[in-house]
């Protein structure tokens, strides 16, 4: 059941240094390499104004070492996405115009970091994103409003109400989630067998 992609489907780019007075970079384990790639194009003083926040698997030494080697002004190493996001909110609470945000990793990481940033007043134009790693989606059930992380199948069973949900391309920046809609409402039990599609 493919859905022709729609306007709200996020489009990601490639991280590149932007003019700015302060650079906040957030990456999960998959996204860390995008920061290392950005560093190749960055002017020498870029990391003197940089604050890197890393999440989950970035705890692995293989990912940590190259980020430490960039010698950012601040390096926050957290072990959970939730911790990284609350660190981001704290940092943005005291930030001013000229702050640029760079986010790299899975769609779930990017979406939730953007959600925090938009809440803090960061303009979309000041946020650069790069998708790395799995295509697993964060989905909100349109019926019981439960958020389901790391969704890889189409359709998916809601962990809240149990309905089989069709995962749409329809995306909410406010919720940082794709919309999941009951797929067999007309004929309960007729949902197709879930297939791994967001990998």
């Amino acid at each position: 059941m493919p859905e022709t992609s729609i306007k709200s489907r996020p489009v990601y780019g490639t991280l590149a240094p932007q003019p700015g007075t302060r650079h906040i970079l957030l990456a999960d384990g998959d996204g860390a390499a995008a920061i290392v790639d950005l560093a190749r194009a960055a002017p020498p003083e870029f990391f003197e104004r940089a604050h890197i926040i890393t999440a989950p698997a970035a705890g692995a030494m293989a990912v940590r070492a190259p980020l430490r080697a960039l010698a950012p002004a601040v390096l926050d190493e957290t072990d959970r996405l939730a911790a990284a996001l609350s660190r981001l909110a704290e940092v943005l609470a005291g930030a001013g115009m000229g702050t640029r945000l760079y986010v790299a990793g899975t769609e779930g990481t990017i979406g939730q970091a953007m959600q925090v940033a938009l809440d803090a007043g960061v303009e979309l134009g000041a946020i650069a994103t790069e998708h790395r790693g799995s295509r697993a989606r964060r989905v909100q059930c349109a019926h019981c409003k439960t958020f389901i992380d790391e969704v890889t199948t189409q359709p998916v069973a809601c962990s809240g109400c149990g309905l089989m949900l069709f995962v749409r391309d329809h995306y909410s920046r406010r919720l940082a989630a794709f919309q999941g809609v009951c797929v067999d409402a007309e004929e309960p039990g007729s949902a197709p067998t879930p297939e791994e599609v967001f990998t």
Partner: protein
Amino acid sequence: MSAPSIAVRVSEVAAVTPLVKRFRLEPESGGRLPAFSGGAHIAVEMQDGAHRRRNAFSLMGSPSDTTGYVIGVRRHDNGRGGSRYMHERVTPGTMLRIAHPANLFPIDGRARKHLLLAGGIGITPLVAMAEQFARDGQPFELHYAARSPEHAAFADELLERFGPAVHTHFSAQGRRLACASLLAEQPLGTHLYVCGPETLMDEAFASARALGWPEQSLHRERFAAPARGLPFAVRLARSGRRVDVGADQSMLEALEAAGAPVASLCRGGACGQCETRVLACDGTLLHADHYLSAAERGAGGKVMPCVSRFAGRSLTLDL
């Protein structure tokens, strides 16, 4: 097509500085004028002898008050005559026709803070914005740059009305507005609105971009009064007529005077409403608008008659 024009009566004229007058316009038939938002402008029709002009002026009254519109007009003696007409011929009781308000310089209500930067008479749309922010309880700061206090029309009343939110910068007193340092200390979520001389607007935008402000947070007034120029003629392909454009007239005004009106809105090269197809051009189109892209100008197929002119042998428009 545009909405019909509105008949208004000038109820008050005040000389604010030697060069700036304030006019209050009230509906001829009483009642209310159409609602508007901070940053909006109106076109005022002036019958100046054989010429009918329509000049755009920003509304500077409070958007909460629609019993009348307030405009501030700076006299430009080297201009095409519209501001001189307003200064010399318009008195309390004068009847005028105006177009419905339009806003090409709108407020972004998502901003956490609004930073307003005015240079000289560019203060006018920002006054209406300040009124709107004050009414809605939205944080704002107004910086007003002028040569001296005598050149800063409305500064005293702004200081009185909005107190510490208003900051003046007088270059003659050695206190020139320092865009870069002002922009460097703004909190996240600030939006910038600039109106004034092109040089001020360019400087503010360049400073903001260099500091890393994203485009969505930058706003500037784009319409500008059409400049005087050399007379020229245009040919209208559909009727085969020839229309002469005088030195003090815009092409749009000449077309209107000739009974071949073109739909228009800002009359200052910003909105794109009067875009007209060029069928033949033996000469040079003197584009003066902010609307057509470089590629469109290069292709030579379109012109904005509100501000752009022509030099050469012949110009044929799809009219």
